[in-house]
């Protein structure tokens, strides 16, 4: 029967071209959306790797002030860390978690090379953000005197650069400094939120002399309120005249980052829903036309032994064949993505996206064609064949 339906559709492919093109277009857009969804969901399923509740991001800007910025930052840090309401505080570069700024560099070990995000921070970072150390330790005060700058890497950096080797104690090259020495490995670290990839990251111990690190992350005690926030901003502002102090809650920054990840996905989703509605209307149109034009054929088939069920399956099946044509053409494009590793994504993401898109299209085609096909099956054969 399938071969019969394929012939039937093939012989009148011209009248189905538009629908096939529509299905092709929806398949391609759906494939894009599903790749994005699969990618985001795959990321989402991995832990974010750090705490963000009750953590305040305090950004300082020295504006025109250039005198002893590093010294003033040290004082400001000591002031923040000294508050009773603050459990723990850490200093870092401006690319703090959920911020919209990035910093990365190329790193290499032996013949292996990769790109990694770089965070400059201090001894208190792991404790303040609750990072999970899986090898070695976080650097401490004593590591400042060592010859090579101590760093902590995350699991992704370790896997990319060292594979299964234990990296603790190893020294490797970076593009912006001569040598880095690894003292520990943390587990996951998705600095831009749950929906982003767990990319390679390196935490470099800052020297505290440059004054570059003008962000302080403070973990506050439960119950700390806006009164304290206002007091803190006032006192910090008084210490650093002409500077700007800005406090944001990390949980709010997280929501902003999520919107940033989710908005493209939502736009694509809307486009694909629109295209799918087009397909659905096209299907309804073709089926209604078919049923009106093909009453005679329906009558003959019933006379020759077709049951109501076989007429219904024939019409649904024809739409499946049309969908399969469109999808087949789309697959020629879609399979290039996993084959050629476009966008450097895991091929599994594309394969899942292809399967999801095929499933959704067949589901919609089935839903749209079921009712009209049942109507076709209900046509009385004697009426359909009636000739004056």
């Amino acid at each position: 029967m399938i071969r019969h339906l394929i012939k039937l559709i093939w012989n009148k492919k011209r009248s189905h071209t538009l629908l096939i093109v529509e299905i092709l277009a929806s398949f391609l857009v759906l494939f894009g959306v599903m790749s994005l969804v699969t990618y985001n969901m795959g990321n989402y399923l991995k832990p974010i790797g750090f705490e963000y509740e009750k953590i305040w991001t305090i950004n300082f800007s020295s504006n025109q002030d250039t005198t002893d910025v590093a010294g003033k930052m040290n004082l400001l840090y000591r002031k923040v860390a000294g508050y009773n309401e603050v459990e723990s505080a850490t200093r870092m570069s401006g690319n703090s978690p959920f911020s919209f700024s990035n910093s990365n560099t190329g790193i290499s070990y032996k013949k292996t090379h990769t790109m990694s995000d770089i965070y400059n921070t201090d001894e208190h970072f792991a404790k303040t953000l609750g990072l999970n150390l899986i090898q070695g330790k976080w650097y401490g005060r004593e590591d400042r005197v060592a010859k090579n700058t101590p760093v902590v890497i995350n699991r992704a950096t370790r896997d990319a650069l060292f594979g299964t080797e234990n990296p603790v104690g190893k020294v490797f090259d970076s593009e912006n400094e001569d040598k880095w020495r690894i003292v520990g490995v943390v587990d996951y670290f998705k600095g831009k939120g749950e929906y982003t990839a767990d990319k390679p990251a390196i935490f470099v111990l800052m020297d505290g002399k440059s004054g570059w690190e003008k962000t302080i992350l403070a973990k506050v005690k439960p119950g700390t309120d806006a009164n304290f926030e206002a007091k803190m901003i006032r006192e910090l502002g008084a210490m650093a005249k002409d500077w700007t102090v800005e406090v944001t809650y990390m949980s709010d920054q997280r929501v902003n980052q999520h919107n940033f990840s989710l908005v493209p996905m939502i736009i694509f989703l809307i486009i694909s829903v629109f295209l799918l509605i087009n397909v659905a209307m096209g299907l309804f149109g073709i089926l209604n036309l078919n049923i009106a034009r093909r009453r005679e054929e329906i009558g003959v088939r019933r006379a020759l032994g077709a049951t109501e069920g076989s007429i219904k399956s024939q019409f649904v099946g024809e739409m499946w064949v049309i969908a399969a044509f469109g999808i087949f053409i789309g697959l020629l494009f879609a399979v290039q993505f996993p084959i050629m590793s476009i966008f450097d994504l895991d091929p599994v993401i594309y394969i899942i996206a292809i399967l999801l898109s095929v499933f959704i299209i067949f589901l919609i085609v089935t839903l749209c064609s079921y009712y009209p096909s049942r109507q076709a099956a209900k046509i009385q054969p004697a009426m359909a064949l009636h000739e004056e």
Partner: protein
Amino acid sequence: MIKLTNIEKVYRTSTIETLALNNINIDIKKGDFVSIMGPSGCGKSTLLNVMGLLDEPSSGSVEIGGQQVGKYRDKELAHLRNQKIGFIFQSFHLINDLSVIDNVEIPLLYRPSTNKSRRDAAREALEKVGLSNRMKHFPTQLSGGQKQRVAIARAIVGNPEIILADEPTGNLDSAMGNEILNILLQLNAEGSTIIMVTHDESMAKKTHRLIRLFDGSQVS
């Protein structure tokens, strides 16, 4: 083979009620060749549709091959049509989007069969009607007589015992019409039971038996 008892068929629309068949009693034996005649609108097609299980009578009973079909449901009726009955229509009713051989295969699609067995049976049926050289053609490329021969091949491809032909020569000139009649006579000689509606007295004379209808009733 076919037995109709007290058949009545009433068509009701919101405004009128048409008595298309009135107290019909017919018993057709295996191997018969019966022709049905009567003026236009007297119920010939309706009668054929009732015999062919395409239409349900308003009352009365239908027996096909000794089976009472009154209580049969769609599936069983479709099965009987597929196995026991072949239809031929005045306007052929071929599917224009399918080649000749694909058209002929259709009845076999509705029973368990393999691709090859369908091809072979369709080829054989087309040979019987003298069209084996037109298998890949499409219906629109054929003359009326050729189309009707395709329709006959389609009707006989599943080896039915009964052939119902509703004015099979109605759209054809007399030469082509006679060709078709000769094929039907040949099939009858090979054992098929045939019921044919016709307007042509000379054709009716070549069959075993003639039923005349007038306004839904049997007059002879």
